[in-house]
């Protein structure tokens, strides 16, 4: 396809006629607008990420403890992400730097450190007794029936792992909650 290049001897720029240039200019303006809209949406969405990560900490502590602690952390995260002096990427990195360690066990350690009872209570939070491999095996067996549904092995394995991790986490959370609840009531089955 030949671009209209100076038909009937009209003006050309770099070998292209005015029609081609007009088309290119319109396309460039549209692309620039779409890019800016995408960047604005990306910034808005990504600055929500640290809050989502912080809320992952919710599964590691009891509801009462979360209600007591999360207000302070959310307020600090709001301040970090609304600091206009820092660029968008810097705010995102700082927000992730703040939220991730809390979600990865910091919340649970804070609860452990802050819980007090009669005298000095040493508490061992019992880990789930369901080994991860055993949970995976049970999940894999249960999902074996879906082989006939043309699920690929990769999908099947990932699904089985996800179910086993969720099961393991749920059991751990329930056990930890029971320990903390007993500590709050002044009893400690671990002593």
């Amino acid at each position, binding site marked *: 396809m030949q671009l209209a290049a100076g038909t009937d001897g009209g003006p050309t720029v770099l070998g292209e006629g005015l029609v081609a240039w007009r088309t290119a200019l319109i396309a460039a303006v549209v692309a620039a607008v779409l890019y800016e809209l995408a960047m604005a949406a990306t910034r808005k969405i990504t600055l929500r990420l640290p809050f989502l990560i912080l809320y992952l900490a919710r599964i590691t502590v009891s509801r009462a403890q979360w209600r007591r602690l999360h207000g302070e952390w*959310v307020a600090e995260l709001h301040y970090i992400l609304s600091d206009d002096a820092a660029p968008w990427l810097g705010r995102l990195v700082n927000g992730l730097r*703040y939220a991730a360690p809390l979600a990865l066990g910091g919340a649970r350690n804070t609860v452990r450190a802050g819980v007090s009872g009669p005298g000095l209570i040493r508490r061992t939070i019992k880990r789930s007794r369901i080994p991860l491999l055993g949970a995976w095996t049970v999940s894999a067996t249960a999902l074996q029936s879906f082989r006939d549904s043309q699920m690929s092995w990769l999908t099947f394995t990932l699904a089985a792992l996800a179910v086993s991790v969720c099961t393991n986490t749920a059991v751990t959370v329930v056990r930890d909650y029971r320990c903390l609840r007993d500590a709050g009531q002044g009893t400690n089955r671990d002593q």
Partner: protein
Amino acid sequence: MDFTLTPAVVRVLQVFLADPDAPRYGMQLMNEARVSSGTLYPALARLERAGWITGENEDIDPAEAGRPARRYYTMTRDGARAAHRELTELSERSRPPARTPGWLPGAGAEGA
């Protein structure tokens, strides 16, 4: 004192002792003490439980400021005295013995 002086707790105490009356916020403490939030907040919980620091919410109007009120921490008088004492004892316990080979004059030349 019913908690251990870990390196992170020591750094946090040093930040507080630099100016015990100054209010300090979470992110500020993280940057000055060079600790992560997962280490900082358990340390703050222990210090608050021991009565060495107190936490309060800042006095702002969330609607006007456009964000919730943050929590800041200040050191108590007793906490400052206790922290100073504990850090001094830790420093004494950590000092290498005077007869360590590195202190002897000419030890570097002998090893060369």
